[in-house]
Each structure stands twice: as C-alpha cells, then as structure tokens.
C-alpha cells in the first residue's frame, strides 16, 4: 500500500510522458495569456529529469524528488521552474525521515509542498495559477484519506479535483504571473500551469494506484 521507489520513479516518468505528449497544447494555452513557452519549458525540464532519475540507484523517494527538484530548477527557468522545483524540493524534504511512504505521508507531503509553492509565488487561490489545481487536489487527497477512502480512490479524487481546478481557472482573471498583465483579458482561457499540475496529479494516480506499476 505504500509508495515505493519504483512507483515514485514511474510517477516522474509518467509526468514526463504527459508533458511531452501535450507540450504543444500547454504552449498554446500559454500563447493565449502568456508567452507561449510553458509546454516547451516543462518538456525541456522533464526531458532533463528523466535520465537522471533513471540513472538513480534504488534509493529513497525523498532523494528521487530532490533530484527532480534540482534538475527542474536548473533547466526550466521561467516561473514554472522555481515553482515546480519548490514543489519537488518540499516533497523531498517532507519525506526525508520516512522509512516507507504511506498514503498519509504522501498526502501530508503534498499539502506542505503546495503551501511552499504558494509562499514562493505569493499566490492565493483564484489567482489563476497552478495553485488552483494543486491546492484542491491536495485537499481532496487529504479529506478522502481522512474519510477512510482507499488510496486509489483518494488519488482519483485528487486528480479530478486538479482537473476541475484547471477548468475553473477559465473564467478567472489572473492576479499572478505573466497572465496578470492582461487584466480582464485573461478571463476565458485555461491557465497552462494549472493544466500541467492536473497532469502531475494524473501521473500520481496512475503511478501510485494499486495494480499499477
């Protein structure tokens, strides 16, 4: 039931695949309200991450996430580099002391990591950023587990919350990031970072759910 090192590795590689597959879509979303590079940025970063993670000897989930973090920070640039970097750095820091990563550990780590992203980016919910996908996802995960749901179901709920969160950004007016320069004209477009964050939550569900891997 716990998240293994191999599952964490699968999580990262599924996220990489998702980004690669939807690179152009993410870039298109960013063209509408940003500078048209979100897919390119994330793809460059995750392509750099992949071989590093594959080359890791079997170790702790925490080490794996720190490797992801450092690679994203030094290859992505832009806003998403430090933000996804911070997310993975905090995941790593949080899971450091863990012998094995239980569903509850994952949920707590994600909650703290999302808080770190919010503080680094000074973003609140409804600012039309990745936070609008990440925060509901981490909340859905936590409340699902608290209600006694199976990990699979909670992961599924987190993914759906992230998806809904990404869709919910469409009518929002951006207050952070490049899209905020558009003022009211940012409304009517889905936030690219929230969209990639939904893909992240989908990758987690695919990698961590029972039977997978």
């Amino acid at each position: 039931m716990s998240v293994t090192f191999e599952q964490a590795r699968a999580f990262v590689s599924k996220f990489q695949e998702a980004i690669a597959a939807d690179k152009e879509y993410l870039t298109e979303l960013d063209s509408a309200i940003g500078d048209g590079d979100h897919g390119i940025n994330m793809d460059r970063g995750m392509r750099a991450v992949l071989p590093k993670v594959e080359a890791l000897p079997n170790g702790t989930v925490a080490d794996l996430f720190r490797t992801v973090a450092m690679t994203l920070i030094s290859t992505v640039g832009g806003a998403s580099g430090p933000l996804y970097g911070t997310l993975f750095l905090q995941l790593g820091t949080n899971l450091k002391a863990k012998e094995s990563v239980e569903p509850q550990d994952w949920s707590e780590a994600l909650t703290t990591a999302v808080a770190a992203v919010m503080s680094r980016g000074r973003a609140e919910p409804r600012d039309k950023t990745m936070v609008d996908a990440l925060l509901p996802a981490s909340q859905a995960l936590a409340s699902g587990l608290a209600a006694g749901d199976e990990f699979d179901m909670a992961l599924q709920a987190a993914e759906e919350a992230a998806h809904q969160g990404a869709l919910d950004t469409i009518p929002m007016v951006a207050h952070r990031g490049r899209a905020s320069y558009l003022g009211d004209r940012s409304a009517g477009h889905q936030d690219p970072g929230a969209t990639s964050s939904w893909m992240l939550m989908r990758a987690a569900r695919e990698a961590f759910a029972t039977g997978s891997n």
Partner: protein
Amino acid sequence: MKKLINNPENVVREELEGIAAAHSDRVKVSLDPYYVMRADAPVAGKVAVVSGGGSGHEPMHGGFVGMGMLSAACPGEVFTSPTPDQILAATKAVSGGSGVLHIVKNYTGDILNFEMAADLAKEEGIEVEAVITNDDVAVQDSLYTAGRRGVGVTVLAEKICGAAAEAGRSLAEVADLCRRVNQQGRTMGVALTSCTVPAAGKPTFDLGEDEMEIGIGIHGEPGRERRKMGPADEIVELMAAAVTDDLPFRSGDSVLAFVNGMGGTPLLELYIVYRALDRFLKGKGIAIERNLIGSYITSLEMAGCSITLLRLDREMTQYWDAPVNTPGLRWGV
C-alpha cells in the same frame, strides 16, 4: 517559421558561441552554465552589475556587457528567465568584493530565479542587492497582481548603474540610483506583427492586416487593447500620452527619450516615430536632453516599437554620458 538557425533547441548556445567568437576582446562567455561576463572581471573594489532574462531581446542583455555597463548577463532560453545556477555562477564570477547589483525585470520567472540565486550567493558571503524594473505603463499596477513589467528602462538603468559602478560608487548608492532610474522612467510599446519563438515554430499571436496591439509586452504578451492601425503620428501620440500622463512628466522636465525598435521595424520608421515624439514633447514643454534610437530591447522579429521616457537629474545625465564599451552600446572610448 523562417529563421537563420540550425535547431530551435540550440539557438541560445549557438548565439553565445557566436558572441564568444566575435567579442573575445571585451567579453568572456561561459557555456555551462550560460553567462556572458566582462573579459576583465572581477574588477576588484568595484560593485558588479549583473542582469539577465530570457533570450530573444538582443542586444539586451548580453550585448551590454563591458566597461561602463554590465559586469555579466545571464541569458535564459528564448523568452524564459535564466535559472538560479546561471545567475549564481555569474554573480560569483564577477564579484569584486564590493557587492553585486542584480537588475531584474519584473516578471514572476525572473524574480523567482534571481531571488533563489541571491539567497545562494548570500550564503556564500557575497553581498547582493536586487532592484526590480517595472516601467511598463501598459499594465495596471496593483498590489493584487504581479505589477508592471520591466521593459525599456532596464537598458537605461544598466547603462547608468554600470557607469556609477565604474566610477567606484558603493552598492547602496548604485542600487539607490537604479531604483531612482526605475521610478523616473516609463515605457509603452506597440506591436504591428507577432514574433515566433523558435521552439514554438509559429507566431505567438495573430493580428489582422489592419490591427495593432497597444501595450504589447516584450515577449509577445498581449497589451491593453487591439486597435485599427493608424498613421505613425497618431500611434506615437497615443503611446507618448500614456507615458507622460503616468509619472506624470511635466512642462519643464528634462528627459532622455528612448525610441526602441522591437526587432522587425526598420530604422527609417524609428526616425519617423522620433520626429512625432519630439513634436509631442515640445508641445508639452518637455525637453529632450538625451536620446537613444534603435533596436536595443527587442522581441525577436516582432515589428513595432516602444517609447521610454526617463526624467533626468544631473547624476543620471553624467552617468549616461560616461564612456561605455559594449558590443551593443559604445561611446567615449
């Protein structure tokens, strides 16, 4: 997309290799991580000035490295801010023991990456001050948003602060001067065509044959509104009025007027813009004391221009006039 490039993924590296081959008399280029630094850095006892940002705005920033201007520049991928490791490496390489000024354009990505780098540099005992430029009047400023973008004033701040650092001023003084330049400067841009990010392969936005984007950002971000194209004099009046109303600039002010091409606009047109600006400012009793006309902060091949006005004081004028020797800007030496 038609570009004189080999592979969209290599444009920045190959550009840096070209700069290294062309200007080794004045700059050194690091390819891992990417940065351009003065050939004679670190200059002991002097403040170092470091800037950086996404590529695609050439000559800014790499073309402004040299005596009297930047100590180092950190280029990110096209329109993508550089990463903390680049900025840290550049900061360490040019630090002469008297502190390092980071001039950062106000974009979330630039801010976050420069912040991370400054934290790391401070951990290593280097004194760093960061000044954020945010001169773009096209964007409404507000506590609840990312605020205004840093655009044309950045070039002027790099020149003026570089000269102050060259003159031996302290980090606090150079940083104060940088903040003053930013406070006294305002910019407004307009685009007639889109640019195409090499890795994206197609134009960032579409404009009708008779449309222009007022308040464009330097990464092709949309601005205030789309309008029907008009004669240059009208477009300039619109832009210049937005700039002068904002600070506001007043009768009796002395300014540096910076007419900047976005990359795809010929110099011929920039002089027509300057003519209109000169008339507009004369009508308001604002005196152009210095000027800069050309493509200095660009958006790849975008057609359009920006107008920056900087209210000058004696110190700014003195440092503006001071010698500078960079590939992109040179006088007095």
